[in-house]
């Protein structure tokens, strides 16, 4: 097995996709398996991610870095969550609830931002919002992907992407408000 993989590695390392695969295939498989608990499904999911990546290779500038690593993990784990929910008959978001994204967040958020001194505050925020929300915000605002690109990567409609971002922003705003109220009460 190891010898086979070493031979294959030499062959496929020549291209960018090959290098990404060699570097991350195990981690992607483990991430998928940890959610789906099924070898075959995890394998299918890794294949799905590789196919998607082959069409969006320009989004990856450096292969061995945290940014690329988390990008791949976010894609595969969100695909797995959807597959898992689909299997269990859970409807995560209904498309008829689509609302336009209000980017003009309240003044509370602005004050909060101005009050940020340490990154622990952001870490706290992250811990309080649903992980898929954090992931969708990361894809949109950190990786600067368009709604279309996210829709292609996560196999969901553009409307669904918009709804998720909208809800993630609402949740974030609520968390910030609550935190502000707690501070006022303490004062």
């Amino acid at each position: 097995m190891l010898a086979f993989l070493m031979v294959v590695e030499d062959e496929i390392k020549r291209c960018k996709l090959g290098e990404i695969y060699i570097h991350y295939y195990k981690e992607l498989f483990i991430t998928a398996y940890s959610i789906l608990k099924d070898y075959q499904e995890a394998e299918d999911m890794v294949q799905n991610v590789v196919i998607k990546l082959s069409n969006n290779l320009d989004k990856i500038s450096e292969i061995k870095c945290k940014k690329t690593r988390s990008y791949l993990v976010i894609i595969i784990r969100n695909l797995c969550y959807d597959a898992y929910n689909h299997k269990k008959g859970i409807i995560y978001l209904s498309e008829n609830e689509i609302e336009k994204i209000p980017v003009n967040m309240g003044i509370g958020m602005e004050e909060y931002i101005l009050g940020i001194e340490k990154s622990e505050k952001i870490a706290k925020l992250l811990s309080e919002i649903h992980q898929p929300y954090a992931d969708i915000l990361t894809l949109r605002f950190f990786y600067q992907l368009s709604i279309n690109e996210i829709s292609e990567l996560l196999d969901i409609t553009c409307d669904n992407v918009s709804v998720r971002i909208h809800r993630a922003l609402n949740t974030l705003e609520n968390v910030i408000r609550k935190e502000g109220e707690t501070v006022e009460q303490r004062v």
Partner: protein
Amino acid sequence: MNKGSREDKEHRDKLIETLLYSIGFDNAEVVCEENDLLLEKYKDIEVPESLTQWFEQYNEKLELRRKRKEFVKRSGRFAKKAAVIFMAIIIGLGVVTMSVDALRIRFLNMIIEVNERFSSVEFEERESVENTEDLPKDWKDYYPTVIPDGYTLNTWSTSSKSARLVYSNELSEELVFIQGPLTGEVHLNTEDAVVFEIEINGFEALMIEEGNRIIIYWRNDSYAFSLKGYLDKEIMIKIVKSVVKNN
């Protein structure tokens, strides 16, 4: 006031953008940390060999597709260059041909020759006539003014190099008069023939007797002529001496 509001809004948008970017950045860190734990937890898991085999095949397909695309692209570029070079050569040759006198004349001569051959054929096929009693209206060459009784103009033809009049009688005996420019050599078959040297209009001439047939070759300042027929020598000479140019 308005300007201030717009600036405030821009400032707020930038701050929010920065916050969201920071959240994304931190989330990426958290994802890596969480996955470190996950990798530790599932470190003994064996990834199916079929996954790498699948990738190898998939990657080969991608590589083939990429090479094909590159080939098509390169071929397109090459074809464009080849077309430009070909056009340049054609234009260059055209310019050289037309600017060098010797080449231009040869080129034009070739065209003229081809056209002459063509028109000659066409002329004979379309304009040859039968049983013409008089000369053709547009005949501008020489012709015999004396024609023995019983002979009528049967066919005629003309080109830039020669003109030909054929007369015949009821017995289908032909009297053939041919004229052409006085250039080059004439090869005569005199085997089993009697050759006489005679004089026609002050120029040397040849009369060849082949059995019943008489052939006379003569010339003037610029043309050579021949007359073939089955008549007496004297009548043949009379016909030859009667040849004049039609005006």
